[in-house]
């Protein structure tokens, strides 16, 4: 007790008896607006019931949370969490996987375009 604890001060006490992270209060309505539009796109009423939107949001948040936890489990073995972990987890779902890869590739293209744009701007500026 009296400074006898030499060594790393941060010594974990009995594993997870004390959770390092506290349970956060989930904010409701994070995806409310977007979900309404998506539901309409899938055939629901333009103004769906709030309870329906809340339920869907619960489902979405639960799905994302579960996915991230699994990715963390996979990534911790590697040491870091990478996007490949997520792709690995949805490998069994072809539509999702394809959509994810498409979005990632688009992201890369946009980055390239921006870079090229900036470079061209720089060259122009330098030329001036």
């Amino acid at each position, binding site marked *: 007790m009296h400074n006898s604890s030499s060594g790393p001060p941060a010594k974990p006490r009995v594993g*997870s008896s004390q959770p390092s992270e506290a349970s956060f209060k989930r904010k*409701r309505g994070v995806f409310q607006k977007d979900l309404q539009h998506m539901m309409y796109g899938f055939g629901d009423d333009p103004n769906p019931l709030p309870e329906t939107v809340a*339920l869907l949001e619960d489902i979405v948040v639960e799905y994302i949370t579960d996915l*991230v936890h699994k990715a963390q489990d996979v990534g911790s073995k590697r040491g870091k969490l990478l996007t490949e972990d997520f792709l690995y987890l949805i490998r069994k779902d072809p539509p999702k996987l394809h959509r994810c890869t498409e979005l990632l590739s688009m992201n890369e293209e946009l980055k390239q375009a921006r870079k090229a744009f900036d470079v061209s701007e720089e060259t122009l500026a330098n030329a001036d």
Partner: protein
Amino acid sequence: MDPPPPPPPSASSEPPPVAAASPSQAAQPPSPAPSPAQPPPSSTPSTPAETLTPPTSSSSSSAPSPTQNPSTPPQPLSQPQPSPQQQSQTQPPSIQPQQRPPLNRSRPQTPYAHFAHHLPSAPTSSSGPPSSIASPSPSPAPMQRGGLAIGVPAHNPHHPRPQQPPLSFSTFSPSPPFSQPFSSTPRVPEQSPTSSSQVRQPVQGIQNIGMIGALSAGSQIRPSVMSGSQQQRFGQPPLRSASPSANQTLNSQKFPSHGLPRTPSMASPSSPSPVSQSQSLQQQLSSAQGKQMHAPSAPSSSYRPSVKPHVLQQRPHHLQQHQHSLPMTSHQQQIPSSQQQQQQKQQQQLQLQQHQQQASLSHQSHEHHNQQYVALRNQQSVTQQQQAVRALGSTVQKSNVPGQGQSGVVQSGNISPVVNADDAESGNHVLSKRSLRELVAQIDPFEKLDSEVEDVLVEVAEDFIESVTTFACSLAKHRKSTTLEAKDILLHVERNWNMTLPGFGGDEIKCYKKQFTNDIHKERIAVIKKSMVATSDAGNPKNPAAGQAASNAKAHAAKAPAIGSPKTH
């Protein structure tokens, strides 16, 4: 002779329930005119269908109308004379109405006697409607004297109807005695056949009107065997009024139509003994077999909504069992349920009784009847259970009300034909056979389950609920709480049954528990990585073995410090 005149067209306006009533009535052709009487009443039911073309029917173009009748027999037979059992009612309905008034007056109270006779003959008549149709046609006259040619088998419609008026009227005969409350009844026939009032009146007057749907309230008036319960029912006059069944019928009829008479009658019922009431009821029922008309007025409107669903369901089933209802009534009384429940059951019984006469399906109705009572009984017990379960966010998705609040009643409220064995079980069943069938229908509309399979599934459902609830309670106890909450059940179901139930999660976010790794483990991994990198730099093809050796050496080195490190702790 020409077949009995088609029933007054007014009946046609009545909704189908009346039609249903008429067929039942037809089943029991009034005794006065056993076979001949049948045609006229049967024709009356057709009138409703023909009301659209009453003039044509009367005019002699009866041929076309009769053809219509058979197709629309079940239709609006609002008239008390239920098309005798079948649909052949093409009888000359138009004629009947005209002659009704004279007939009615002729026998104010005989109808009941006739009805009594009709009772035994009813089944037979109903069984052979087609044959009866043919027979009655030849002798329309006897029907005229008959009194209540209720449920007279449909007679050839093409017959001119002129002579049938009395016959057709006979169908309304029951109304005369009941007509007291409805003074206009006798005039009804005089009105043009299209007048729907005719139909209505007899409907009101007729006690055993197949109160289907909303009219269920009226049916309550019927004698309900539940004499005792009747008292509870307001306005459902206890038929006990006087011994004569006729009086009773009158009283019963009066109630639906008039509110005033009700009050006095209400008082009376309380006094009479239930036994006498039941007897009188039986008489009335027998007499009123054929008449199933909608009691337009809803004396007991308060009960209507509650009974409505039941009534509607019963409509298609022709319940019989007057006698069965008796034991049921006593059974019901024992039920600690509220009065309403009893009343509902009573109403159902009455309806059942009425239907029974009309009826075509005899045994099934009884079962339905029983089921209804049991269902009602189960409803309350189940509802409580369901509510409790729901509050816990029960995962009982099997029930038809997943995630719904207090819709427990809905689940058990489905009164539908169920095997008697199902009802035999005591209440407190989580899953009813009816709900199970509906679930199966959602999966496959044409799928049918064996009764044994249903039993097993019900058992599985109950075991599931019990096990989940038990474990959830132990979790709640572990949480040092005396309240079973949704999160207890969610946790158990999620971990042991691998079922996620969205919508009940609350506001907590599931925390991620990072894998606990020891420091030693981390150190070792770091060393290995370094060695791996080093060996790869050195040239993989060159010294894979050397790299491995180096890594091994490093591993040993790592172990040494690792061993040393614990001492520091």
